[in-house]
């Protein structure tokens, strides 16, 4: 198995050759070993979205129970851990709120263990925590989940590899083209520079956008701590005209 120093050296080398226009992760990022055989080698084909690609699936109150936004509501008792609330807004690339749309989250428990059967981490399961939540955004694009802070956990990418604590987010926009899945991280985690999944996003500014910030206005007296994290999807196309002077090239 490779050492952390070897992985970190690879990461540094790739970062030196990256440029500030990169806002998305590299698909070809060898320090994340599982990506080696799973990234396309050919450039993505630039296409104009058509028909069905311009319309996202619709979700509503028949799909999602409001109680699904509270991951601490479990039969039989409460989960162990640091109770938190994560709030934010889902916006499109033009700053417009994404209204009434599905947000799904999943995460490890406070000990860094997922209930997934393939998670073999030697840490306890919590009988009162599944780590799965859903909600619909409000008219202002807002979402809110009550949960416990997940723990970091080891994985087998390299020797002594640890994932920084994170919550997985699955998001939809108003167009199918805006579909995305990402991970939210917690402020100040010392594991950030060591993690090849986060570092596949080569620019510090883009990585910073994956980190929530502590928000004391969200915290509640003698109850929980608040975090705020806004998510920006890609821009829509339905009412968008390609700039004729080439000024929009950086978005192409």
């Amino acid at each position, binding site marked *: 198995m490779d050492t952390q120093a070897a992985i970190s050296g690879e990461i540094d080398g790739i970062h030196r050759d990256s440029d500030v*226009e990169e*806002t*998305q*992760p590299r*698909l070809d990022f060898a320090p*994340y070993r*599982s*990506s080696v*055989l*799973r*990234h*396309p*080698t*050919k450039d*993505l*084909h630039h*296409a*104009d*979205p*058509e028909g*069905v*690609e311009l*319309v996202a*699936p*619709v*979700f*509503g*109150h028949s*799909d*999602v129970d409001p109680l699904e936004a509270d991951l601490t509501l479990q039969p039989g008792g409460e989960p162990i851990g640091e109770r938190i609330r994560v709030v934010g807004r889902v916006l499109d*690339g033009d*700053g417009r709120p994404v209204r009434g749309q599905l947000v*799904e989250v*999943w995460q490890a428990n406070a000990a860094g263990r997922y209930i997934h*059967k393939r998670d073999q981490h030697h840490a306890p399961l919590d009988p009162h925590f599944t*780590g*799965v939540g859903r909600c619909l955004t409000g008219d202002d694009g807002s979402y809110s989940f009550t949960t416990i802070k997940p723990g970091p956990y080891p994985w087998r990418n390299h020797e002594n590899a640890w994932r920084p604590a994170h919550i*997985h987010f*699955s998001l939809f926009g108003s167009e*199918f*083209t805006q*579909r995305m*899945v*990402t991970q939210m991280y917690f402020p100040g985690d010392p594991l950030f520079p060591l993690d090849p*999944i*986060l570092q*596949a*996003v080569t620019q510090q500014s*883009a*990585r910073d*956008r*994956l980190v929530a910030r502590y928000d004391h206005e969200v915290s509640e007296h003698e109850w929980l701590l608040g975090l705020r994290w*806004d998510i*920006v*999807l*890609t*821009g*829509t*196309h339905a009412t968008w005209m390609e700039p004729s002077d080439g000024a929009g090239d950086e*978005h192409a």
Partner: protein
Amino acid sequence: MEPVMSTPDPQQLVPTAGQTIGPFYGFALPYERGHELVPPGTPGAVRLHGTVLDGAGVPVPDAMLEIRQADPSGNVPAVEGSLRRDGTVFTGWGRCAVDPGGRYSFTTVEPGATDEGSAPFFAVTVFARGLLNRLFTRAYLPGEERLEGDRLLSGLEPERRGTLVASREDDGSLRFDVRLQGEGETVFLAFPRHGR
């Protein structure tokens, strides 16, 4: 959120970076009948299925696909009900995690064309452990005259077009394999405004 000083339009925000779905979405994202856009046995129902393969030709056991499609007359449904399917509403969206052999299977109906002159297709999104961001592609219906003049297909090298066209199996089902890398690599799409 940091202000975006470099763009001419102050309303344009930088999209949040994607990240891999990881290995442990299985208890969270798949749900009952997620892959059944219509109940099995529905008149006109067809199976859209295939295998997700990596660059060594090995099935990927931890991938997930979503499809978005029109109904047979080319209308794009915009109705809720995908997560709790009652069997009466066609929502035109579905989700399927692959099995340990990398195989997925949707039960659905064949989409009609949404635009005059374009060929009918399923819009497909691919997620997997080891895949750092989602991939978009299309699965076109086979045997359609309109494949010839389709805007997207005609812009591809001829030898790659076939990667986007499903094949008809003897049992009438549609087969669409996804090759993430290597020989026969599926054409994956970037849309305008996706950044890089």
